């Protein structure tokens, strides 16, 4: 049933990254008074294309794009368990203010943490990786 639902779901008309780039470009070019109007039109466009159902991915892409334009990078920090604030602070100290840090618990890691910068560079300290290395 799930498979059927997945296959029947409509494909996105444009990619989240394309939406994010075009919105950020429009906002950068617009006057200060016009920005709200642009945001309204953007939401209207999403409704028209039907891609509003993918809002979570699009908003994520917009945040990433904003971070990149400010000179930072989106950083995802996965840990086997929820990290306490002191540990989060220790890890955050390694990154600049412009970076957008996102902490996420991931029990699949078993233990340790995994840091992904810019969506494609990974530093993996997880126990899961060590186990994979041992048995593959």
């Amino acid at each position: 049933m799930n498979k059927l639902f997945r296959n029947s779901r409509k494909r996105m008309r444009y990619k989240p990254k394309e939406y994010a780039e075009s919105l950020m470009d429009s906002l950068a070019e617009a006057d200060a008074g016009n920005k709200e109007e642009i945001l309204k039109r953007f939401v209207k466009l999403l409704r028209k294309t039907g891609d509003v159902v993918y809002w979570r991915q699009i908003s994520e892409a917009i945040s990433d794009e904003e971070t990149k334009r400010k000179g930072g990078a989106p950083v995802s920090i996965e840990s086997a368990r929820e990290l306490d604030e002191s540990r989060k602070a220790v890890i955050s100290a390694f990154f600049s203010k412009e970076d957008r840090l996102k902490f996420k618990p991931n029990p699949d890691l078993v233990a340790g943490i995994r840091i992904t910068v810019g969506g494609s560079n990974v530093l993996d300290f997880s126990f899961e990786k060590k186990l994979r290395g041992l048995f593959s």
Partner: protein
Amino acid sequence: MSREIIEKIKKEIEGFKDKPQWEETGIISEVGDGIARAIGLYGALSQELIYIESAGSSGDIPALLFNLEESSLSLVILGEGDEVKVGDRIKKSGKVLSINASEKLLGRVVDPLGRAIDGKGIIAPDEKAKDMLLEKKAPSVMERESVGSPLHTGIKAIDAMIPIGRGQRELIIGDRQTGKTAVAIDAILNQKQEEDRPVFCIYVAVGQKNSKIAKIVKNLEENGALKYTVIVSAPASSSAAMQYLAPFAGAAIGEYFMEQGSDALVIYDDLSKHADAYRQLSLLLRRPPGREAYPGDIFYLHSRLLERAAKLSKEKGGGSLTALPIVETKLGDVSAYVPTNVISITDGQIYLESSLFYQGIRPAINVGLSVSRVGSAAQTKAIKKVASKLRLELAQFRELKAFVQFASELDENTKKQIKRGELFTEVLKQGEKKPLSFDKEAVILYAATGGFMDDIEISKVGEFENKFLDFLDAMHRKTVLDAIRKSGAIDEKTEANLKSALEEFKAIFSKK
């Protein structure tokens, strides 16, 4: 025993070193039908082997990188596609797909990734084993030599009129149920008789029924041919990716033997199904469809595969790889897309016809439409001597046969020509799994073309043939058969011996 295992694991853990470092990675964004789309991994190369770290799988799942787009990658999953999920990570291997080829593969049935699937256990490691790339550039002009030595199929009609040379690409084409696979299997069986220079065989089954593959394996085993044959199997139940890779795996194994200086024969059964598998992959990858929905590079797919068949120069070891691709036509339509492509790529074709098959002419080879572009350069002198007239006389016979349907009275000469044509057609009939060594083919064809069988009734030609071969085997083995086999020719002395043997046998045969 369990203690030993524990100690072994302990040792592995003690010796395990892991130095975390920055790695490039990508994320699966879409998956379905054996195809996955991913984002990231910007440094990946086309056709690179990618590993998917799936949470549901114990190990990494291999995938092949097909499409490199601006913001995404398209991967063809080579393992269990069901275990891959959106969000799984992917990593580069830095390698392109290869198969570990060695002589240990002989007698085994493997999948396109070289894993044994015959239930006889893993393939034993071999010192001489080599990783052969599935996608490899064909030998260049300078590395090649012209095709000169014959590859005997053991089928009289082929060896006499459509000779195949070692390093040639000869297409076997015909409708379903016309005996295409039987011709190819007979060619494999006949290699048992090639004592001077053995030929290693690779049979690639693409999209075939498992029952058919099992039957072929049994057939080869029973006839002692499996020991020099490798079977690469991608049955109809396997994924389109596996079916697409199978011929390339077969070519890679064949190249291993060729590079060792040996001769190899690879049979692709069949390229129509291979094209269909590639079409399926291409459509799922959203590549633009062309004629008959095949992608634009369908010609290149087969040309780069078949171009790998070659006869290497002496400097390169002198090995050869002969390719016998099979293509299935629909209702005899040779002008369809894939058949015309493969006809233009290969060095000739053996055309099998349903009407001939149902008339009882087996193998159902249409001699008029079949051709070998290598020609008599790839024929032993003995066969060349006896078969030169055969093709011409058969062509004349076919023309006359069509003409006499309208004529009521025929002159003696025409009647004689028709009778000889019928005799030749009968002589060229041959049972399945009964390939003949070239010396035996030569003596039979000598008897037919030399007029020694003109007075034999058509219904008794088969009997004459079998008994004559038995007679020669028993009475004139050394002076006739061995002499032809040794020299490869029918010299004056052997010819005289053969003539006297024929006369002697005819006297016995006519008495019965």
